[in-house]
């Protein structure tokens, strides 16, 4: 097995504001190999975006935010780099695409110039070579008439087209790792499918690793090789895509899966869409024990509200779960009697 492109160990993120410190990521570990897509799934506020920004070191600086643990890419420890050396990593090693295609481009610069800028500060290339590369990138992400469209301003493009520009920008230097932070959330479903297809296609050609952040298991099923579910700053379940989708062990994962609307369900099954009652707890006031127990239909008093479960392996497949009751025999939703 090849060495992982990205290796994250015990990643912790703490924010400080007004003299109070709040920890939002509580020790996250994972690896991603070349050509592989790892999906990081969770509700808003689960810490998935903060985790991805921590990898890019795009969070506020030291007194306001502290990151500890280890983030290694190609043997380089990112958390120890100076800001200047980190800037040299961003682009050629890790690149990122964002959730808001409408605001992630600078409205006053032409899109071609914004892509060219991503190349210019990392590679010694002539003006004409950069121009050729920009046109190549724009056509790769499926923008028609790239030699003309490169002179357009972001305001002249639709959301889907702008997201393609952002993707072209991220891919400009053929990064080892692409972090995609909910890149399709703000887009129409048809455009969403096109963008996912585009990312998969590029990945097939470049063997790039991808960390895909989303709250939508529908998207996960489309794109991921492996899945990690995050809740309240911790990984609560992880494993191969098929394994997690077919036999989710953590009640939270099951809740997320149950809340995905399915096309084939329409008209066939009546009844409301599955929901998870309640809200993600505030990082200031995490409940004792398993952070999910106040919302969990299977929580057992005296057990789940006392000890924090470890992330433990289930039957040697690499499937890991953070749940004290995961080893109990699986019960179907209907026969389960809440204790």
């Amino acid at each position, binding site marked *: 097995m090849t060495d992982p492109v990205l290796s994250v160990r015990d990643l912790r993120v703490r924010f400080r504001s007004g003299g109070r410190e709040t920890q939002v990521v509580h020790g996250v570990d994972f690896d991603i190999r070349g050509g592989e897509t790892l999906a990081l799934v969770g509700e808003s506020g689960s810490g998935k975006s903060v985790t991805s920004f921590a990898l890019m070191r795009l969070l506020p600086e030291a007194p306001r935010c502290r990151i500890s643990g280890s983030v290694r890419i190609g043997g380089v420890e990112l958390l120890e780099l100076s800001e200047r050396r980190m800037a040299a990593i961003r682009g050629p090693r890790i690149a990122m695409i964002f959730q808001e295609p409408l605001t992630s481009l600078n409205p*006053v*610069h032409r899109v071609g110039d914004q892509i060219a*800028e991503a190349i210019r*500060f990392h590679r010694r290339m002539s003006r004409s070579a950069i121009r050729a590369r920009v046109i190549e990138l724009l056509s790769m992400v499926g923008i028609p008439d790239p030699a003309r469209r490169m002179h357009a*301003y972001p305001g002249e493009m639709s959301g889907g087209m702008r997201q393609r520009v952002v993707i072209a920008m991220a891919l400009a230097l053929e990064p080892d790792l692409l972090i995609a932070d909910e890149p399709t959330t703000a887009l129409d479903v048809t455009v969403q499918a096109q963008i996912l297809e585009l990312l998969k296609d590029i990945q097939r050609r470049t063997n790039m690793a991808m960390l895909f952040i989303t709250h939508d298991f529908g998207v996960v099923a489309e794109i991921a090789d492996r899945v990690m579910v995050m809740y309240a700053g911790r990984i609560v379940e992880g494993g191969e895509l098929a394994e997690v989708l077919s036999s989710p062990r953590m009640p939270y994962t099951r809740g997320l899966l149950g809340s995905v609307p399915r096309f084939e369900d329409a008209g066939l099954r009546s009844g409301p869409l599955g929901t998870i009652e309640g809200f993600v707890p505030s990082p200031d006031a995490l409940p004792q024990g398993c952070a999910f127990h106040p919302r969990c239909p299977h929580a057992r008093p005296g057990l789940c509200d006392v000890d924090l479960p470890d992330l433990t392996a289930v039957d040697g497949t690499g499937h890991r779960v953070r749940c004290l009751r995961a080893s109990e025999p699986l019960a179907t939703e209907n026969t389960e009697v809440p204790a």
Partner: protein
Amino acid sequence: MIRFLLHRTLQGIVLILIVSMIGFAVINLAPGGPLSQYALTPGISQADLERIAHQMGLDRPLPIQYLDWLSKLIVGDWGSSYRDQSPVLSVIWRHMWATLLLMGCATVISVVLGTLIGVLGALRRYSLFDYVATVGAMIALSIPTFWFGLIAIFFFSLELGWLPAGNMYTVGDQSLGDYAIHLIMPSAVLALVNVAIWSRYMRASTLDVMDQDYVRTARAKGLPRWRIISAHIVRNALIPMITLAGLQLPTIIGGALVTETVFTWPGLGRLFIDSLGYNDYPVIMGLLMFSAILTVVGNFLADVGVALADPRIRLG
């Protein structure tokens, strides 16, 4: 774009007409009047006064006087000063370049310093520098210009003797260095308030831009810090400043009024005050019209500037 320019030009012309009407009416309705100067002449008779009034066209109805004045104004005859009979345009022209020199210096200082202080304050928000700049700006904005000017004259001219207390040049010298030394104090006094205003606006605008998603994108691209600041933060933060600069253009007349008086600077501000004292209506009206035109032109230039700097405005 052409439609937009035409539209703004028409708007400007209407605005200038309205200002001219109101200005003309207010000045002529005010007590006193041009004849009051002559009324003080010893031995002058009522018949003499009426003859002068007739000569000057002052015995006609006000709307007729206005239309007469306006029609001449359009063809470039802005009337002549009551004081020395010289044409109003040449009187304004003579005083304008002194004001331009002073305002030009002050504006360059305030734009450069103000932008720099504002950007640095925003980049190092809540640092010692930011606090000093904030408090400094509040103090500068609170000090009355005339007081600060007098204090500056007291220290640098009377006590230390480093700088001249007033005027634009030493009679008989008029070298470049002589102009420069006379410029230092009035332009510094004038710039003080403007640096404060400019730096506050620039700081707010920069902070606004720093939170934008595209700045995060620029960082994610691995651009060097100076490039992010220059191309993505300051570049965008300066756009609202163009409007501010346009609005400051007419202050060429009003803005320097106090400073010119304190430093006996022979500019438009002094001319305005003096003309008021003499009831010199043609010059007062001339300056009023000049100021109105500058306001319209300033706004117009600001709109064009913003459109050039911001494709969202240009193409939207």
